């Protein structure tokens, strides 16, 4: 129940284009309930069998949905990653100290834009990773419910398949994220006091697009932390609690 609610919250905070790409957790839970209530009532077998088939069908189509969305996003990221690097290079060779038209003002201005863009880009990639993870978690939970309710054995083999799905194999995105971080660290080194004061008067583009990413990221972290707190169904398959904050602040209402 809690997961469903958290998932819903997460979806609310997510980037608008992503809203319908998440797991239909609620629907699947309904199906599981339908299946498990089948045999015990006087309904004939085909009905519960039908619900079961529908469940499996929905599982598969959800996974397809995840895969398609994920792979497409990944493709975009690959393209944008390269373009960002190109932009940086161009700015350096144009406005940089050794460039064609060295100009500190222009350099800073362009770099400022790039910085915002690259940080948002980084954020989106991380959110995609989060997307992958939260859907995986949802799948694992719904499979567990299924097994529990129907006495079936779907969970273990199914989850093994899921682990190999494109949407869960996030190695490439992860690598892009790290590269991004490295680039940011290299190109936008930590400025000292002097540099800060200079930037003061500069005009910068608003970071409104970044706000939603920021919110989403914070929401994701909080969600993750909450989900990993101890629960009644804690088992060997559960993840350990996540401690992100000082103990003072870790008291959250359940």
């Amino acid at each position: 129940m809690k997961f469903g609610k958290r998932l819903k919250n997460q979806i609310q905070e997510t980037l608008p284009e992503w809203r319908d790409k998440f797991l239909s957790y609620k629907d699947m839970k309904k199906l599981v309930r339908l299946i498990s209530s089948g045999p015990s009532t006087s309904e004939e077998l085909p009905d519960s069998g039908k619900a079961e088939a529908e469940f499996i069908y929905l599982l598969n189509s959800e996974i397809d949905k995840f895969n398609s969305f994920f792979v497409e996003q990944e493709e975009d990221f690959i393209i944008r990653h390269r373009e960002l690097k190109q932009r940086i290079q161009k700015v350096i060779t144009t406005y940089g100290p050794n460039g064609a038209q060295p100009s500190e003002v222009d350099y800073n201005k362009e770099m400022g834009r790039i910085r915002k863009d690259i940080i948002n880009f980084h954020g989106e990639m991380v959110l995609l990773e989060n997307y992958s993870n939260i859907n995986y978690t949802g799948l694992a939970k719904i499979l567990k419910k299924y097994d529990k309710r129907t006495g079936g054995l779907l969970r273990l083999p199914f989850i093994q398949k899921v682990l190999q799905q494109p949407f869960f194999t996030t190695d490439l995105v992860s690598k892009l994220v790290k590269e991004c971080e490295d680039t940011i660290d290299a190109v936008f080194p930590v400025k000292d006091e002097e540099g800060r004061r200079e930037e003061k008067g500069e005009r910068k583009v608003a970071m409104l697009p970044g706000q939603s990413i920021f919110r989403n990221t914070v929401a994701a972290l909080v969600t993750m932390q909450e989900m990993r707190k101890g629960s009644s169904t804690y088992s060997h398959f559960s993840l350990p609690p996540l401690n992100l904050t000082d103990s003072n602040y870790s008291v959250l209402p359940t």
Partner: protein
Amino acid sequence: MRKIMEEYTTLSFQRLGARQLSNLVASGAMSSSLPVLPTPLEEKYPKLPDSQQVSLEREIMANSVPPHATQLASNSGVVGHMFSSASGFTTDLHFSSAPHERHFTNAPFISQSSSDGISLPLTRSSHSGVFQSRPMSHYPRENNNISWSADQLQSFLDFPENVPTQNNQVESSNSGIMPSDDNTKRSDWQEWADQLIRDDDPSTPNWNELLADTNVADTELETAYQAPKPPQNFLVQQPQVHQQIPVLSGDLSSVASPSSSVTGVPNKPRMRWTPELHECFVEAVNQLGGSERATPKGVLKLMKVEGLTIYHVKSHLQKYRTARYRPDSSEGSSEKKMSAIEEMTSLDLKTGIEITEALRLQMEVQKRLHEQLEIQRNLQLRIEEQGRYLQMMFEKQCKSHNDRLKTLSSNLEESSAPLLDVMQHSAKNEVEPTKSCAETGNDIMDASAIPEESSRKMSRKQKEPESHSEDLNLEGVSGSDSPPIKRVKADDRSVASAKLASD
């Protein structure tokens, strides 16, 4: 969520004090080394036996910081591979047949791709830098620093609703007072962000130590991963290992999963791009005179990638063109429009420093989430891996046990029917042996070490719905090789004694 926000509201009230820019600037130069990783293994939750815990941590670390070479090997020199989504299960049968040897043949590509453009040499230390306490000299620790962001950024957040500039100016002039609920709520985001990036437990050093062992752990991990598995199930670690660039290893493999009956989903070859493939694409495009002049057909021909279709190239070209003429910003045209408006009004309000700081905070939070996700993912992989291994072990045990049972039970049947009845009554659940094997296999995953009582389940012949004991916590599962063995022994004893009695 709401409740949490309220909690945080009270906190944020306390923390918003007077901010001075000089403070901001001064403290910004502070170097506070923040250990970034929390410890995932706490006292609260059931402890695995120590040795297990350590090795688990090790393997996690090894997973999350794979050796430079391996990572590159898996992801570079790789071609986008295609797979169909028959039942949503696109197993990598042909991928798995791409063994490790391929890594090394790709060495030349590795060095190529890693040094293009600006991307820095990704040295080992830079990776591990993520986990170690990075000198976060830029990171604002003081309350004051966050309070500015709370105030300034909250007016950011208000933008979509409160367009008039005056509002925001009024807000930003309020030092530390949050007049409205809305503002309070919005500043919570910064509060959360701050708390999420705070200092962690002192037990984080664990991770740093473990990180030093990455080398060792890696080799351990590799063998651990390979030992229990048949080559077919080559795990997710390197899903994209393939032949060299020009050749797409992927055929349109449509593999139907055995566990799904009805697919109903049409087979669609899905293409998975990689940076290397994209590089190849860009080269082809440039050769043809740029993204505007190049045609999908021409690019396809130039790329000479097996299995790549014009459809793939076409859609990729479209994305490429879009990316070039709308230099990187977040997706969504609606957001773009808003940002244009914001640009005009916000510039007067936001100083460069504040924006820089906001971006920095955003970056920190993102980094944090990324790390946590990596850890979580590796844990999940590990958990499932272990589950699978246990299942396999259990099934093996089951099989040999069943074989034995069959011979013994045929002996029993002759003489000990009344005795069997007695034994049946003493047990709660009665299950048919072969069925119980698989089901209780699942049980093992969910239950604690199986008590001896349940061993009697095995010798039952009648079928009855089994009640799962999911509520039991699993402790020391790692050592759960023993329960099956115990059970066998227990059964032997009970059966043997029955036999004796009947004699």
